[in-house]
């Protein structure tokens, strides 16, 4: 419940505050007011609660003080009542003490008179003694023995007799005293018998003393009124008012009101008082103060409040006025600064005592400087823009909704203002231009296109970019655009495209590099040559193409190129897969239009095939030289040995010629097979063909097709030559019927120590006589072949014909897979 109430109060409170805030804002916004008004309102806003609070507290304090006085009135009245009752009690006690006198019991009235006079000598009281007939027996007011009348107030004495209790009278005129007095009467019993009435006559001044015993301020007035409403005693002007009746209204208020009451005193002034009835005498005891005394604190509070109001209004207004002037002056200065800034002046405001104003003027000063700088920059930019527009082939234009030119940046085009494309362009160029602009106006989308026209016989192209312009309502109201004359660019792009096509289609690797050697372009031939794709090399250093052992080469080349030189060299480069290829490189600088070197261009041609051919040629040349020299050495050795067995020059010439011829035949075979070797059947044919007839029928050879290594070709060729020479001189070829069979075979492939077996056997020649001495030929036949080919030779001389067995390792002889089982014949099948 409590939360609900809080929330409700908060909700409505917020609504009220917001409504007040809105209304206040609308009030202040509707009519601007000076700062001092706001400050005064601010001061009032601050002072008003304080004033209200002060009024509240002052009122509270006055009420408290009034309540306190009123309580004091009640207290005083109560205390006086108690004092009066005590005074009457004291009188009764005094009477009862006197009543016990021996003299009185003995009816010794003279002694009793003296005792009573003596006991009351310092008081305004007198003692009377009445008998039951109400006759005064003695009265201390007069000397004893003076004739005395009956009592003036019989009803009180009768009430004493009747009640046998002490009684107190109202104010009455004493029969002896002849003045207003009051009497306190008690019964006197002598031996248990009522005999007398002892009376104490009290003069009212005695009671006035009691009233003044409270020592109240002089504003206080206390009074005693008897049961008949007669004033018995009064603290102020007692003599004037004693015995006078209390006004009816005052008496009625005293009787009716309980506690404090307001009334008009007997003196006719407004009072505030309190009345209590004496329990002993039944009198009314009143304590009063003037109403003005009670209300003085209220009056003082209101006076103070008025002073506060005046002080707050005067002080707040003054302070508001002072602060308004204090704040308004810097603001006025800032306003002046702002006005000057608005007028385009450069401002530099001075500081004021107000930080906020300083901040404002500082901001204005900064804004002034920034504005100045921006103005200068804008001026520069406009100047540059103007220069650019004038210097470049750029035209800026604006057109209205009907495509009429409103403004054209180039002065020469001023004449087109107010015209449309249809009015200024050749007919064939109008439609694309009109559609282009209409599309911008229709769609509101920026358009960009090349537009061409032939003007003054020259075909020209503009790159036009146009976008819509809008009115303040956001509707398209025209076109703004830029037209750049790109005639030269398009021509250059055409040429560039041709060059690019050439670069793309050439077989030369062409690299464009930065001056730092970073690859920027990479044509397809380069991809093919090096294996790197364009994406793999763009942005990387060209050093990735350099083998490690040539790492420094590229920087040397680039350093030369950066000085403007063109470098041509043949070198080695590395492909993606790590292969090294020989390339011919032409490295040249690329330049911009001003001739500045802006990059490096490398054109590389793969010369690996050429290098391989060159290397092969070089190898062949070295091999040729080696073999030639070796052959010459062999020839020299053969010549030396032939000389040793020749008796004449003719004989030397004959033998040497044949051996050279045989050697040459073997060399021919080797050359035919690139020095790798020769087929055995071809070797036999080449060595023996000079010794046999045209059909070769006297040589019968048979064996598989075997390819001999070059080393075996030369040595077996020499041996066959010497065997044939010997046969032609002494053996089967020396007559008309003899023939020679040559057979050969290879051990099976899986055989251990596989060998080639060759058998030379002569048939039907003259009977053979074994020679007794060796010569050059036998040395070759029997010694050289076996030694040179790590084989074995067996030469036999049976009478039927020479037999020559040769075995050499199979590594000197290879069979062709397709010809392995096929025998061949060297010279002829039959003689």
């Amino acid at each position, binding site marked *: 419940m409590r939360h609900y109430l809080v929330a409700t109060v908060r909700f409505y409170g917020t609504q009220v505050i917001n409504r007040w805030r809105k209304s206040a804002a609308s009030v202040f916004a509707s009519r601007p007011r000076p700062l001092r008004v706001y400050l005064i309102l601010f001061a009032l806003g601050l002072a008003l609660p304080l004033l209200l609070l002060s009024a509240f507290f002052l009122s509270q304090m006055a009420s408290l003080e009034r309540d306190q006085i009123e309580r004091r009135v009640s207290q005083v009245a109560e205390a006086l009542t108690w004092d009066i009752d005590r005074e009457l009690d004291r009188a009764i006690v005094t009477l009862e003490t006197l009543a016990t006198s021996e003299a009185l019991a003995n009816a010794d009235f003279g002694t009793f008179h003296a005792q009573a006079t003596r006991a009351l000598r310092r008081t305004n009281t007198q003692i009377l003694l009445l008998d039951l007939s109400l006759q005064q027996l003695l009265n201390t007011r007069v000397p004893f023995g003076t004739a005395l009348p009956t009592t003036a107030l019989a009803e009180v004495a009768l009430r004493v007799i009747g009640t046998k209790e002490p009684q107190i009278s109202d104010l009455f005129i004493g029969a002896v005293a002849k003045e207003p007095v009051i009497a306190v009467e008690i019964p006197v019993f002598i031996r248990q018998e009522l005999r007398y009435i002892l009376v104490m006559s009290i003069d009212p001044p005695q009671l006035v003393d009691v009233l003044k015993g409270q020592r109240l301020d002089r504003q206080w007035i206390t009074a005693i009124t008897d049961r008949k409403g007669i004033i018995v005693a009064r603290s102020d002007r007692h003599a004037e008012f004693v015995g006078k009746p209390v006004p009816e209204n005052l008496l009625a208020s005293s009787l009716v009101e309980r506690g404090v009451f307001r009334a008009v005193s007997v003196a006719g002034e407004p009072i505030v008082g309190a009345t209590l009835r004496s329990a002993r005498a039944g009198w009314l005891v009143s304590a009063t103060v003037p109403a003005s005394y009670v209300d003085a604190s209220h009056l003082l509070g209101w006076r103070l409040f008025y002073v506060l109001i005046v002080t707050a209004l005067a002080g707040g207004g003054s302070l508001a006025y002072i602060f308004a002037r204090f704040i308004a002056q810097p603001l006025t200065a800032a306003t002046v600064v702002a006005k000057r800034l608005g007028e385009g002046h450069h401002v530099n405001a001075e500081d004021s005592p107000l930080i906020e104003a300083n901040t404002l003027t500082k901001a204005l000063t900064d804004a002034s400087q920034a504005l100045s700088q921006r103005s200068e920059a804008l001026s520069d930019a406009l100047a540059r823009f103007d220069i650019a527009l004038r210097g470049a082939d750029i035209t800026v234009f604006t057109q209205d909704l009907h495509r009429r030119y409103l403004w054209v940046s180039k002065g020469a085009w001023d004449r087109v203002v107010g015209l449309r494309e249809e009015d200024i362009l050749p007919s064939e160029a109008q439609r694309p231009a009109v559609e282009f602009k209409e599309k911008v106006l229709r769609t509101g989308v920026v358009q960009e296109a090349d537009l061409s026209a032939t003007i003054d016989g020259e075909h020209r192209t503009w790159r036009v970019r146009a976008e819509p312009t809008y009115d303040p309502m956001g509707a398209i109201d025209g076109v703004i655009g830029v037209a750049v004359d790109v005639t030269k660019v398009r021509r250059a792009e055409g040429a560039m495209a041709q060059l690019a096509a050439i670069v793309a289609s050439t077989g030369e690797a062409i690299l464009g590099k930065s001056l730092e050697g970073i690859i920027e372009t990479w044509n397809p031939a380069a991809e093919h040559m090096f294996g790197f794709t364009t994406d793999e090399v763009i942005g990387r250093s060209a050093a990735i193409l350099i083998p490690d052992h040539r790492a420094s080469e590229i920087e040397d080349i680039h350093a030369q190129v950066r000085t403007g030189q063109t470098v041509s060299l043949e070198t080695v480069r590395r492909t993606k897969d790590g292969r090294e290829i020989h390339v011919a490189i032409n490295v040249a600088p690329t330049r911009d239009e001003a001739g500045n070197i802006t990059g490096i261009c490398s054109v590389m041609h793969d010369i690996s095939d050429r290098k391989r051919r060159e290397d092969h040629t070089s190898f062949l040349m070295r091999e040729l030289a080696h073999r030639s*020299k*070796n052959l010459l050495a062999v020839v020299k050795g053969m010549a030396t*040995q032939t*000389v*040793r067995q020749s008796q004449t020059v003719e004989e030397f010439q004959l033998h040497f010629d044949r051996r050279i011829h045989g050697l040459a035949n073997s060399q021919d075979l080797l050359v035919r097979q690139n020095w790798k070797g020769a087929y055995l059947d071809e070797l036999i044919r080449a060595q023996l063909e000079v010794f046999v007839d045209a059909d070769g029928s006297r040589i019968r050879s048979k064996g598989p097709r075997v390819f001999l290594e070059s080393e075996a070709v030369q040595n077996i060729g020499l041996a066959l030559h010497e065997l044939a020479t010997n046969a032609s001189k002494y053996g089967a070829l020396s007559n008309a019927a003899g023939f020679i069979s040559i057979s050969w075979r290879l051990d099976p492939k899986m055989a251990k120590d596989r060998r080639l077996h060759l058998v030379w056997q002569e048939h039907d020649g003259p009977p053979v006589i074994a020679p007794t001495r*060796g010569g050059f030929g036998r040395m070759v036949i029997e*010694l050289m072949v076996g030694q040179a080919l790590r084989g074995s030779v067996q030469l036999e001389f049976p009478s039927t014909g020479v037999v020559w067995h040769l075995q050499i390792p199979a590594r000197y002889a290879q069979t062709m897979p397709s010809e392995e089982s096929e025998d061949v014949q060297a010279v002829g099948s039959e003689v």
Partner: protein
Amino acid sequence: MFLDRLEVYRSHIAPSTFIPAWLAPSAPDDSDPPTETGDEADKSFDEYRILIVEDEFFVALDIQAMLEANGHRIVGIAVTAEEAVVLAARERPNVVFMDIRLAGARDGIDAAYEIRERFDIPSIFVTANTDDHTRRRAEVTRPLGFLDKPFTQQRLRMALAAVRRRS
């Protein structure tokens, strides 16, 4: 072995009545410029024990003839690197006339290196190989010289002079 059998053949070959000047073993070689070393080589001859390593039969015979004509003794003719090492170990020649290209897997440089390392016997390379790479390889064996095939008596004596200087 081979050398013994060779002697048999040679002993049966009749002395030549015709020896052309360009084939004469000790004929002066006019084509070679006279050199100090060559002159010194002509003055006196020490007999050296020489191993010939050559797989070309006629070339080996020619070298043998030329060396013997100069008064040296041939301790053997080998045609492979392996044979060369065996003969060098057995005969301990003063020098080896080493062909570079030999029959078999190993070449003459291999053989010369092993013989030099094991027996401290130097070689003279007799070769038709004259390319720089082969020569650089051969230099590792600290040879006494190179004889390019075919060579003359004069060149042979200059090579032998190197042997004499070493000894």
